[in-house]
């Protein structure tokens, strides 16, 4: 599951939202790419929560502060506002209860940063509309029966959930298929159509 940094443009976007020396919790920290990036460039006090024991052991061996745990069940053990930022990158769609998880992120962090693949992207729509099949793309490489991604949403869906949780969007970025940021002046429907990935900075 190792991903090189170039493939994860969203991580650069996430890192760009975090000021130096912040306290950061990375939920679903994987092999520690983001935490390492943040420690190198922002000297943050970073912690990680990762489901796979293998990922955790690799992180700890590299000197990162990471524990094994499940975003769906283990966030409750963190105190209110214990972190400046709680990051959930490319993990929301794999949680059993995304609403609860998002609620917890907003409780634990002064701000939450969420990145996810946009299911409203035109390629996804195209696949469903013309082929009548669940999309398998570079971003979403799994078949429907073996995917860990069980709760896909579109950018619009996500914005609705944020409102429902009483949180506000402080900043949002959509990335197109080439990892380029989509212009801020574009309307939501445009982002929802051309954004392959989205990164949100939230506050409640």
């Amino acid at each position: 599951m190792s991903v090189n940094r170039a493939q994860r443009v969203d991580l650069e976007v996430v890192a760009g939202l975090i000021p130096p020396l912040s306290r950061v919790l990375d939920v679903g920290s994987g092999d520690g790419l983001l935490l390492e990036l943040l420690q190198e460039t922002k000297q943050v006090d970073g912690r990680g929560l990762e489901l796979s024991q293998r990922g955790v052991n690799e992180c700890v061996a590299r000197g990162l502060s990471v524990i094994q745990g499940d975003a769906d069940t283990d966030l409750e053990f963190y105190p209110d506002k214990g972190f400046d930022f709680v990051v959930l990158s490319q993990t929301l769609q794999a949680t059993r209860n995304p609403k609860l998880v998002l609620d917890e992120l907003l409780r634990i962090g002064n701000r939450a940063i969420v990145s996810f693949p946009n299911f409203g992207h035109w390629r996804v729509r195209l696949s469903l509309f013309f082929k009548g099949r669940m999309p398998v793309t570079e971003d979403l490489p799994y078949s429907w029966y073996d995917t860990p991604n069980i709760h896909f949403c579109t950018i619009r869906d996500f914005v609705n959930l944020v409102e429902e949780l009483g949180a506000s969007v402080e900043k949002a970025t959509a990335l197109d298929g080439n990892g380029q940021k989509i212009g801020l002046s574009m309307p939501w429907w445009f982002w929802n159509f051309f954004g392959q990935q989205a990164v949100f900075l939230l506050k409640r």
Partner: protein
Amino acid sequence: MTALRAAKTNNEADNPSSPVLRFGPDKPLKLDAGTLLSPFQIAYQTYGTLNDARSNAILVCHALTGDQHVANTNPVTGKPGWWEVLIGPGKIIDTNRFFVICSNVIGGCLGSTGPASTNPATGKPYGLDLPIITIRDMVRAQLMLVDHFGIEKLFCVLGGSMGGMQVLEWASCYSERVFSALPIATGARHSSQNIAFHEVGRQAVMADPDWHGGKYFEHGKRPEKGLAVARMAAHITYLSEAALHRKFGRNLQDREALTFGFDADFQIESYLRHQGMTFVDRFDANSYLYMTRSMDYFDLAADHGGRLADAFAGTKTRFCLVSFTSDWLFPTEESRSIVHALNAAGASVSFVEIDTDRGHDAFLLDEPELFAAINGFIGSAARARGLRA
């Protein structure tokens, strides 16, 4: 040979081969039992050099039947130090870089005051006249040793099993004195099942007629059979069903067929008997009672109103916990509950569960993943502490 070693163990209690720090009546050790222990002494070993800033000290806490000889040849057994795979020049815990301290716990039998030590009031060994010793008492004594070295803040405190309990106690009671803590294969309390196993061991010792109510030295005896049985039962809990089967299966010991008797037909029987016999050569029976009791009494949450997170409130210490998948004495869940408490306390914590079939004793063995975790944790802590590489 056995008698010779036994004499040596007894001698180690009062006049150990290690350096000894003696505390007179002006510096008693306050015990949880409500009394003062005085005079008392601590036997210890050190490795490496304390730097000028006194910031490179690592305290190693030993387990139930361990001792201070963590990285040198053991004077009683002649075997390598119990953690020499990890600690030494150029090793993961590099004694060229760090100043490593390991002391025999209070209640032990290799030179720190324990039941085999001479009671100054009677001129005879304490036996059961020694008050019950707790994990916190051990840590209080270690603190006096650390103060003796003029160390304001230990760079790291680490240990496995009962050693891990001491690490947790250090981090809880004296968090400002502990920069990083590495409790391995341990728990914040002793479980009912673990107390049960310890009780079996103690009853085996006490049932031995040579125990004499704890006054066996005065009778020129030692409850070797009872202590050996205690060790055999305990040893099973340090391994795992899978590892036992892998190593011994149902293999027969030096014979082609079952003997239809009660000899050690099976290799596992022979192995356990050997473990029991070699243990009594190096360990004092009463000390075994005290050590097991200290673990039974350990319950860090209970000392903080039942809420474990409160034991670590406001801590700045960096933690790394390690558990092993096949450890049924301190299963991963025990470590995980500590991790959750540390999270709740806002502490910096790493937690690694290592996949192995070697059971609880895995922490003493050559486990590459364990070493990688320790190496990563110590390395990043050293950078944060500003220690040179």
